[in-house]
């Protein structure tokens, strides 16, 4: 491990949301069953190719979810977890809520992609609650998603609006799950998290050294 290790990939500029979604989509293994969280992760579906043969799960009871419904396709009985009307692909299936979450919680989904407020060095996730006094807590399926999938990918900007790193030593927001995140995709780099700490796989528009200055936890470079 060394900050001068050059085995990690770099690109010249920070990544926009769509480029990041493209990157996540590219990293999903063919044939995977995937749940995309509400918000930024939903963009990933735009970049999945037919050859990848990915099956999308929505926790309100469906496998084989297609793109967002438009115009005449809109059917009030066919929505995703974000309550957006969606479509059905050939080979889809419907099931009730307990079966749907059993599928998730039983470890049958390969990947779940989530947004986050913070991710800790050991993969703790905070994405459900700001902890602000008076805020009404709402969790939805966040804790089930964080715990259930074989791999949990996070997509987020590296920094808050105030410039603080969202990759942290320990979450200051209430956690959603403990040690559950395996990979973090940000506009400035891709990080692997887990018991071994944080490993940088790629950097975007910055060097590893510059990244280390932004992030208050030790970074390792991925070996080739």
């Amino acid at each position, binding site marked *: 491990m060394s900050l001068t290790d050059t085995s990690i990939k770099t690109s010249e500029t920070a990544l926009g949301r769509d480029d990041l979604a493209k990157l996540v989509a590219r990293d999903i293994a063919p044939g995977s069953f995937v749940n995309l969280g509400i918000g930024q992760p939903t963009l990933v579906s735009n970049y999945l190719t037919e050859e990848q043969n990915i099956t999308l799960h*929505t*926790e*309100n*009871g*469906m496998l084989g979810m297609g793109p967002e419904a438009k115009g005449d396709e*809109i*059917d*009030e*009985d*066919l*929505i*995703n977890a974000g*309550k957006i009307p969606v479509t*059905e692909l050939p080979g889809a299936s*419907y*099931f*009730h*809520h*307990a079966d*749907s*979450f*059993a599928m*998730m*919680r039983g470890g049958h989904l390969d990947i779940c992609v989530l947004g986050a407020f913070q991710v800790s060095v050991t993969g*703790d996730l905070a994405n459900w*609650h700001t902890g602000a006094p*008076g*805020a*009404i*807590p*709402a*969790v*939805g*399926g*966040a*804790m*089930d998603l964080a*715990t*259930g999938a074989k791999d949990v990918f996070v997509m987020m900007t590296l920094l808050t609006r105030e410039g603080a790193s969202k990759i942290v030593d320990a979450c200051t927001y*209430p*956690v*959603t*799950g*403990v040690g559950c995140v395996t990979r973090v995709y940000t506009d400035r780099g891709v990080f692997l998290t887990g018991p071994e700490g944080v490993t940088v796989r790629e950097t975007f528009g910055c060097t590893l050294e510059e990244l280390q200055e932004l992030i208050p936890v030790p970074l390792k470079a991925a070996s080739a």
Partner: protein
Amino acid sequence: MLNFVESVQEAVAGIKDGSTVMIGGFGNAGQPFELIDALLECGATELTVVNNNAGQGDQGLALLIKEGRVKKMICSFPRQSDSWHFDAKYKAGQIELELVPQGNLAERIRAAGAGIGGFFTPTGYGTMLAEGKETRFLDGKWQVFETPIHADVALIKALKADGKGNLVYRKTARNFGPIMAAAAKHTIVQVSDIVPTGVLDPENIVTPGIFVNSIVKVAGSGLGTSTTAGKAA
């Protein structure tokens, strides 16, 4: 005993003050709007309501909350852009909230219907929502003890019923219907169609009639593209 009733008013007439009422639906899909309206009309109060959300806009469950009929909500996601009636009651300390991760909500409802007295699940371990709960290391993971959620009444929406009370649903409107039907002592279903017994293929029945007590046909309900009033975006 299974009853086919003529109106939503008749269907909910027996719901008593202080009941625990499960209400199906996720977003608008599968929400039994007409039954909820009838529940509001019938005047039952001091209710504990189990639903994924805590009402939206100025309709259905949101009105029940606004009118002060709901003592306690058990749900996973009470905070939505248009859940202002819940927000107001919550901030005024006039409604109790039991916040449950959605998968725990589903599994706890399923447990009630299946005669399971409690179970361990990894969901929520190490979080605020597991504070004070028993934990145990099982199958290589820390897990949290959760208990069943029983109900006096379930209000659900299905697509079709036959003469035996067997139900089929439509697309993602299925969601909580089947597990709530099994968890409640008395299950009331609004359907868009009642078909003769024998028409539904026994292989495809989702909720067998054993879980159903009252059925009411609501015109236009369950057709996917809404034509009835009272549904928000």
